[in-house]
């Protein structure tokens, strides 16, 4: 076994880090930072750089100075930032390290990142109360002050240590690129040289943060900390975990949601070389083997009879028909202003349209998986951990343990897009049931790696919910937009989940209507209402940008239709209606200007080209996209270019903002041509032939423009997604005169 991946060493590291810290509150702002102290050298030597979360690389030097829960400085001059949020591609580890390093005045090259263990007392998401987790594009926003203060506290302690050692005033000491210096005496020292002394200094009660004009890393291009490991094969994902004696589990899942195992015959499966055991669990039948391929072969050799008496058996077409029927009557009011009925009664003209959105899979490149090992004092889990506090509590319940007995190792996630933030901890619970089922049957209680094959992942549910939207606009005799009705029908993500108590109010699931109920446009009479069917048993979940993944489309595509009906330019109408929303207006203006909105798009004779725009706020960030498309004679749409403008507050790392917007555009475009569909309750797609992420040839040119800002930073992992498809649909309408209102796009209607 590769020493670097030796799990027993990693496990000891996690143990030390969890138990050798005393806790003392020392900063304002709700953050309970902990005060560490020098670890015994022998123990510290074993502490791995990659560990408790094990997402880092290389081995650490002895720990010498740990001023708080987020920072450790080694005698070898290494600066380790403990990242409380999951790195799933969005650049969080780099961003969090940037905040600490900025205020510490560290040299970026000496900074390393390590994933935090599960410990909500120290590592909670400040926007989520006492809960640790990553999501909602909150990582940088909630850490903005907390981690800069953590860095500043470390810096102050280093400075005080130097002042004491050199017998000079702390105010005369400068810190730059990881070096402390005293100009008058010419003395200098690295962080590493002062680590032992700094650990003896008092933790400052207050710290002063830098004036933004003095930032050296924030707003500049701090290079990603995970680039090296992710380009040489050494980055460690859950799929890569190997433990001594570990078994791989592949599970036969029922073909319909809600079906259960009636009986099974495992004789052939057990004959497959490498298969060790076959067990029934609530989620299906698990085959355990020495390696993945044997487990797969074993599963394929199983014969299972399913009990479908409680299974959900509707198809997508029937679900959609029901939703359209429901949309005929008013739903629960999500927003009401003015007198909408009166506005429509007085309207000179009414525009109406409806929009359909299918189920969508997250389809992360790393299918869902996790590793669980029962230990003498509890259980240890390896996972691309996104919801530590919830996962710990739910796994503890299944395994008959206390939450603190469940130790979580946060590894890199090979994408998530919301999937690993499982509201009911689905795949982890499945793994826990397997571990429970083999306890006492397989000697030594080996660790189990649950591996979902691509088909398990794609058919496993937890989709972006299918939605139907119906919209109407009232235009009065003076040509003014006076009324707006928006009705949505779709399953709730939150009802029935642990989040219901916090986020569902008066029967309205906030994430069903986000982006619709907070429509920014100045329309005096407006009604948004919602139907939430409760008899559709398809598991649904947040999918990158959540409610905005459908509401941005219906609102922005419909407003374009309204603009056309009013004979107004789509940008001009939006700006007229956004007088009270300057941040929306600013990104819209910037994107339009950079795209050359007022200059006609060049097209060869006979070519159908068009430009479309959309603007949308999600997660407190504002994004406008201008799309340029070419529509072929057979109706095929080629998205040539997206010009984007973004306001996400202070840009912490502009290059990463561009990367997230580029990626968000590609992620959003995938939904042009893809859907998860059900027939008789069975998911029709199983692999990338049926549901295909965008390929490189379909990726447009992308230009991202960032609005300068000194406001607090907001998220960027998700906000690039919502305005992509409406901008494309609006561009197609400009090119062809035809409106695409349903996803995925049926391009046959565009053929000439």
């Amino acid at each position, binding site marked *: *076994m*590769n020493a670097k*991946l030796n799990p027993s060493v990693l496990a000891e590291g996690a143990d030390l880090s969890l138990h050798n810290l005393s806790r003392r509150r020392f900063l304002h702002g709700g953050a309970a930072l902990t005060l560490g102290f020098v670890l015994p050298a022998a123990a510290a030597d074993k502490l791995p750089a990659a560990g408790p979360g094990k997402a880092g690389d290389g081995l650490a030097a002895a720990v010498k100075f740990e001023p708080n829960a987020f920072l450790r400085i080694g005698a070898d001059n290494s600066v380790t930032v403990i990242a409380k949020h999951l790195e*799933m*591609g969005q650049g969080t580890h780099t961003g969090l390290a940037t905040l600490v390093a900025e205020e510490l005045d560290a040299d970026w090259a000496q900074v390393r990142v390590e994933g935090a263990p599960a410990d909500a007392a120290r590592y909670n998401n400040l926007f989520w109360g006492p809960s640790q987790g990553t999501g909602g594009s909150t990582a940088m926003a909630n850490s903005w002050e907390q981690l800069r203060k953590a860095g500043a506290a470390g810096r102050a302690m280093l400075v005080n240590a130097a002042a004491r050692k050199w017998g000079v005033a702390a105010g005369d000491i400068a810190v730059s690129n990881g070096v402390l210096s005293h100009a008058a005496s010419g003395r200098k020292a690295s962080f590493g040289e002062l680590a032992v002394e700094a650990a003896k200094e008092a933790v400052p009660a207050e710290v002063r943060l830098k004036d933004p004009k003095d930032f050296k890393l924030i707003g500049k291009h701090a*290079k*990603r900390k*995970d*680039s*090296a*490991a*992710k*380009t*040489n*094969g050494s980055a460690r*994902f859950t*799929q*890569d975990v*190997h433990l001594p004696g570990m078994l*791989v589990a592949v599970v036969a899942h029922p073909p319909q949601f809600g079906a259960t195992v009636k009986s099974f015959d495992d004789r052939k499966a057990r004959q497959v070389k*490498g298969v060790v055991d076959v067990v029934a669990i609530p989620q299906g039948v698990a085959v355990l083997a020495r*390696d*993945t*391929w*044997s487990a797969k072969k074993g599963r394929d050799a199983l014969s299972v009879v399913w009990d479908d008496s409680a299974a959900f058996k509707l198809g997508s077409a029937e679900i959609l028909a029901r939703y359209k029927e429901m949309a005929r009557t008013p739903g629960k009011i999500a927003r009401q202003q003015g007198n909408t009925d009166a506005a429509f009664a007085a309207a000179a003209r009414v525009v109406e349209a409806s929009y359909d959105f299918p189920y969508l899979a997250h*389809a*992360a*490149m*790393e*299918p869902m998986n996790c590793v669980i090992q029962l230990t003498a004092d509890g259980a240890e889990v390896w996972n691309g951990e996104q919801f530590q506090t919830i996962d710990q509590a739910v796994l503890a319940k299944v395994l008959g343990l206390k939450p603190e007995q469940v130790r979580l190792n946060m590894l*890199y*996630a*090979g*994408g*998530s*897009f919301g999937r690993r933030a499982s509201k009911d901890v689905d795949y982890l619970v499945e793994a826990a049931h397997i571990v429970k089922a083999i306890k006492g049957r397989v000697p030594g209680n080996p660790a189990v790696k649950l*591996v979902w*094959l*691509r088909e398990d992942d794609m058919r496993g549910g937890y989709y972006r919910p299918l939605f139907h939207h119906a919209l109407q606009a009232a235009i009065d005799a003076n040509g003014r937009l006076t009324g707006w009705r928006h009705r949505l029908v779709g399953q709730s993500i939150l009802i029935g989940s642990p989040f219901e108590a916090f986020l569902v109010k008066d029967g309205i699931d906030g994430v069903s209507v986000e982006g619709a109920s907070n429509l920014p446009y100045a329309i005096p009479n407006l009604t948004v209402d919602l139907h939430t069917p409760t008899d559709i048993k398809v598991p649904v979940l947040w999918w990158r940008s959540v409610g905005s993944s459908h509401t941005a489309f219906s609102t922005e595509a419909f407003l374009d239709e309204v603009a056309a009906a009013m004979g107004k330019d789509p940008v001009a109408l939006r700006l007229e209606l956004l007088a009270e929303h300057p941040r929306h207006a600013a990104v819209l203006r910037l994107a339009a200007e950079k795209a050359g909105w007022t200059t006609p798009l060049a097209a060869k004779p006979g070519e159908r080209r068009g430009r479309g725009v959309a603007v949308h706020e999600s997660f407190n960030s504002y994004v406008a996209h201008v799309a340029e498309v070419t529509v072929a004679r057979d109706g095929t749409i080629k998205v040539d270019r997206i010009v984007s403008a973004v306001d996400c507050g202070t840009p912490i790392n502009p*290059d*990463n903002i561009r*990367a997230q917007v*580029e*990626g968000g*555009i*590609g*992620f959003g*475009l995938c939904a042009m041509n893809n859907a998860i569909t059900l027939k008789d309750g069975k998911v029709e797609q199983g*692999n*990338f*032939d049926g549901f*295909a*992420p*965008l*390929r*490189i*040839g379909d*990726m447009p*040119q*992308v230009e991202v423009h960032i609005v300068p800002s000194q406001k607090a930073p907001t998220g960027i992992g998700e906000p690039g997604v919502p305005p992509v498809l409406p901008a494309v649909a609006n561009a197609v309408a400009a090119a062809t005169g035809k409106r695409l209102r349903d996803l995925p796009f049926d391009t046959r209607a565009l053929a000439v």
Partner: protein
Amino acid sequence: MIKLNVNGKAVNVDVAPDTPLLWALRDTLQLTGTKYGCGQAMCGACTVHLDGEPTRSCVLPVSAAVGRRITTIEAVDSGKVGHAVQEAWRKLDVVQCGYCQSGQIMSAVALLSHNRKPSDADIDAAMSGNLCRCATYVRIRAAIHEAAKTLA
């Protein structure tokens, strides 16, 4: 026992002959840089080089790799092109989640080994079998051009 040549070393793997090379690399040899994504040669996450040619290891029985030179991401920087590609990927911060990037790099190295000055169209054609759900494609194109520049 099946004898393989992996990254310049002779190794023995004790697996059934129908086992895909991917799982022999990952589970038996613990060369986990090569990834599982689809099992059907549709996503390219499992791309390795077989005698220098990009090959989807998830559908290649290990018995078919006997007597061939197998190169994985772990050894790709030992070649001049591989090193240039890795450096370009790092310079432009191509990666996001990173799970598909081993396969992307293996395909890019194969492209540049045959074509030192690929156009965007050449890149799109050579890389069309490698999916990236994070859609890092803008940077993949740019990094391949960047590597081509350093190799020129």
